[in-house]
């Protein structure tokens, strides 16, 4: 088990109070873990004419479209099948809100997500039906903004090893949003996308090589992944698809709207080694620095390896409007 020493200055810096704890790195995946969830339609917009009074349920259903929710799950420790289920409900910290309506979307098993060929899919589709409408209306009833800011519902995933105690299952959730077209410029979101990742390994004298496109795909799917020597660093930079940073309008409490541009974030994960930063991208910081997109992966030490080792890497791209896309790649570390 790899660990990371985290030291944070306490609130009274002058007193040198510090909290130092040795915790697992959040960037390194060591056991069964949900890494990402993505919906083909992360949010949708419906037209409401408030001058005609409250919208009729049938009108709402007519405008809603199905959305398929898929999950990326890693299970690097075991070679086994995974049991999972997905539930449609209002989300709370514990998963589905207690006492709220819920609808089972799917349950079943998938083959080992790390080595099965082809890659298994863990998906379910949220259909625009009476079940969804019932949940949406229940949430709307409790919403102080009466739906102006959108109605958030969610899909909760429960996953565990086949035959394992369900009490040890991982619980994850992803929100879906139903927005009224208020103001009229409000548009639905599309999941973010990339053209490629550029890789620039560091040389022994700590200079980066010229970047080149990083081969993508799981380790089991790649014939010639990028090779590094132990502790060698590589800078990986996402190259976004033109237009992936959408311009969008957010309703304001006075019934108007404000326009913003998306600022995607990147979450960096691997089963070994380390990253210079586990999360990049996002809004500018308070000094006005545009958030860097890249992260540097450092290969594990030779003594931590048992010969040439393929290390799976995952990068999750998200926007602030519930959009998410994931990418898998592999780095071979050769001592």
């Amino acid at each position, binding site marked *: 088990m790899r660990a990371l020493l985290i030291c944070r200055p306490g609130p*009274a810096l002058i007193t040198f109070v510090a909290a130092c704890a040795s915790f697992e790195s*959040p960037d390194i995946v060591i056991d069964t873990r949900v890494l990402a969830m993505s919906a083909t339609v992360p949010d949708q917009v419906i037209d409401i004419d408030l001058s005609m009074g409250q919208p009729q349920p049938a009108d709402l259903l007519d405008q809603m479209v199905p959305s398929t929710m898929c999950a990326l799950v890693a299970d690097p420790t075991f070679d086994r099948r995974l049991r999972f289920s997905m539930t449609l409900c209002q989300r709370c910290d514990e998963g589905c809100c207690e006492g709220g309506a819920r609808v089972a979307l799917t349950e079943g098993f998938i083959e080992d997500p790390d080595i099965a060929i082809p890659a298994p899919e863990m998906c379910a589709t949220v259909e625009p039906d009476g079940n969804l409408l019932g949940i949406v209306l229940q949430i709307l009833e409790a919403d102080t903004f009466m739906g102006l800011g959108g109605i958030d519902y969610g899909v909760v995933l429960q996953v565990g090893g086949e035959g394992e105690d369900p009490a040890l299952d991982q619980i994850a959730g992803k929100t879906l949003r139903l927005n009224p077209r208020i103001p009229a410029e409000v548009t639905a979101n599309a999941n973010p996308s990339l053209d490629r990742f550029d890789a620039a390994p560091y040389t022994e004298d700590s200079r980066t090589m010229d970047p080149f496109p990083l081969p993508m795909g799981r380790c089991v799917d790649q014939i010639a992944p990028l090779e590094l020597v132990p502790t060698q660093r590589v800078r990986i930079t996402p190259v976004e698809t033109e237009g992936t940073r959408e311009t969008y309008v957010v309703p304001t409490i006075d019934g108007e709207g404000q326009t913003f541009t998306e600022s995607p974030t990147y979450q960096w994960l691997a089963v070994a080694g380390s990253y210079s930063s586990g999360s990049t991208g996002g809004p500018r910081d308070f000094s006005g620095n545009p958030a860097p997109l890249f992260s540097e992966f450092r290969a594990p030490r030779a003594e931590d390896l048992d010969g040439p080792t393929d290390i799976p890497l995952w990068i999750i791209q998200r*926007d602030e409007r519930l959009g998410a896309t994931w990418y898998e790649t592999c780095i071979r570390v050769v001592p």
Partner: protein
Amino acid sequence: MRFCVVMLALLVATPALADDPPAPAPARTVTKSPALIQAVAPEYPPAALAAGKTAKVKVKIYIDATGVVTKVDVLEKVGDGFDEAAVAAAMQYVFDPAEIDGKPAAIAVETAINFVIETKQPDEPPPRAPPKTTTGPPNHAGGMEQPITLQGEVVERGTRRKLAGVIVSISELGLDVVTGEDGTFYFHGIPPGGYTVLAVDPKYDRLKRGIAIAKREKIETRLWMRPRGGNPYETVVEGEREVLEVTKRTLQRQQLTSVPGTFGDPIRVIQTLPGIQRAPFGLGLLLVRGSNPDDTGIFVDGHEVPSVFHFLGGPSIFNAEMLESIDLYPGGFPARFGRKHGGAVALELRPTKSDGIHGSAKVDFIDAGGYVRAPITKHLSVAFAGRRSYIDAFLGFVLPEPAPGAQRIVTPIYYDYATRIDYNLEEDGRVGLFVIGSSDTLRVLDQDPDAEVSTDLSSSVKFFRVIGNYTRSLGGDMQLTLSPAWGRDTLSFSGAQAEAAGPFTSLAIVNNTLSYRLRAHGRMDKRLTLDTGIDLLSRATRYEALVPIDDNLINSSGIDVDPSKLFRGATTLGVGTYADVGIDVTTKLKLIPSLRLDMYLIEGQDRGSIDPRLVGRYKVDKEWTIKGYVGEFSQPPQPEAVDTRFGNPNVGIEHATHFGLGWEWKPSRLWSLDSEFYYARRRDLVVFTSDVEANDDGTFSYLNFVNEGRRDSMGFEIMIKREISERMFGWLSYTYSKAHQKNRERFDRFVPTAFDQSHVMNAVASYKPGKGFEIGARFQMSTGRPDTPIIGATYDADSGGYQAIRGPTRSQRTPTFRQIDARVEKVWLYNTWSLGLYIDVINVTNTKNVEAFEYDYRFKEKAPVTSFPILPTLGLRGTW
């Protein structure tokens, strides 16, 4: 026979412990015998002298721990007036006291006084002693019609403070004087010869000095008195003051700087008193009886000031030398302290004196500072104090290393200054001006070309106050005080990329405060004491910001909002009038009804409060007093809470009701016990809410703040205190309390407050064993703070992080806090100055006290966040 001489033979035989009969155990050893340093010749009984009779009178002399004779017993009576003459003489002896087990102690000695008649031929005329009785002032002795032949002044070693009330005697002549206010003494007509001058004061080591006076010579001398225990720091002796409050805990100047674990910080010492919850991480928060820190007012000569601490948990901005005393009122405080419903801390400033140039300086690891006061004229005097930190010099050693290729410059600097000028108008009163200011700045310049980011961050907090003060007598015991004050507090922050033309984000808050107090107080007649006055407060707060503003958005999570300029302002005008009336209903019962009326104009809206209070004190006997109170207290909302855009201009006044019942026991001058049960019910508290209200046009408005908070606390406090004496002081304080709160949004039921601690105990002791040493220790113990357990976590795929599943709110506590701090100081006394070297060690046992917990990214593992490790501070301070 020319004259008769009385021969004394002081045969110190078998000194016995004065506690008669001696305790059987444990055995106590006389480590130093008493030494006679002043003997008085007995009167030879005239009849016996005429008859040529001699005698030997055996007596037992009882000497107390200060060397004074308390009793004389004749062991074998001989008659003829010899017994009475011997007793009369022995009662006037003065001894250097005996020591038992190394400490001054009472003792009894047996001796014999021989009455013999010697015949002596006169060689030369003996010097004629001046008459022993004079009609002059107490600091003059001898024949007043004769010229002064010996004059001098008595001063304290180390501080050169003139000492009044010291007895100076010439033992050979039986003359003594008591020094005047300016420490001077005068002897008239002392014949030529060699003499021993003795100076005696209970708070100082006895001083004996030989002098020789020649014919027609006049001698001037200065007697340097060494404080007992070798500590030159001034001790304040308070007279009885009129009591118009039920519970007030006073700290005197010496206690302000020598309590271990407080960094010599006068305000932090308050945290050791009952009713105060322990602040986490050694921060200077004042958590009084379950209230928020903002609910307790800090008043400097009656004027409220904001937080008085330097940033990042640093020391308070007040130099202890500028303070006369600090009073803590944990509840039921007098009506003259208004606009707060938690507690009150009153800092009384110390007027300067025209008593010479005095000062002090201190240097330690964190900062260096000094204080000087000097007379300008007989009636005009000034004082200055200042301090500057140099933590910037070593902060780099404790901060994490920047990444390779990166550069980081961190410059935290704080300083403070204070000036006071006083003019004594004598019968027309006293006028003074006090100026205090502080500055805390922090600049962080971080450049990491590899990470393609740079940061230039600047922040500063500045505090400034000018307080004027005019005090005069209104006749009788009544006093009038007029005090205007003006202050400006600023807070600024800016963030930019390195070498940027201007900030990307910034914030500046400027708060201008003008206040005025008029107070008349004192005893009006035998049964009536009055404290009444008016206080005005005008506050204008201005905000300028360049920040991402998202208050109009319904959901702003993750949105990159452009900064925009923002200008806001808030004004508050408060007018208050109050009266505390002390009525001595009987010689034992005192009732103090009070009333405070406050009117406010806040953001153009008027608000008001009427706060009646009643305090009762019943003196059961000389030692016991029972006390109780009930009263209403009110507090206006903070300026930001009434802002028309970010606050709610409709929020009203917060209210509280305080109840208390307790007793005081004062069995001696040095020891006291103070205990109290209390209950405080705070209601209509202004709390933040994210609720919105729907407008008629279909739009929404955020409420931001509402008067829906409740915070109740109840408990029991006790304090056993040993007042300052020349060798020691200390106290033991214990508080049992329960404080809980609720508000509509966060807690729909009562939960413990964030700082609730059921048991809080502080034991403070300081002792001067002698040779200039002072040792002190402080023990703190408190129940851990409330904490909400985390019982699991789920993964939030929208953010990429885990969401904690929390158990019942604040249903568990961090472990009990225990800490011992110690302090040792050695003072070297020189005539004109003193030098002290001290080491203050926080957490001497290096106990790992848990202040909070931190969790791993998925809340599976937790680790404690601990408070101070062992932390020694070495410092030097000089006083002159």
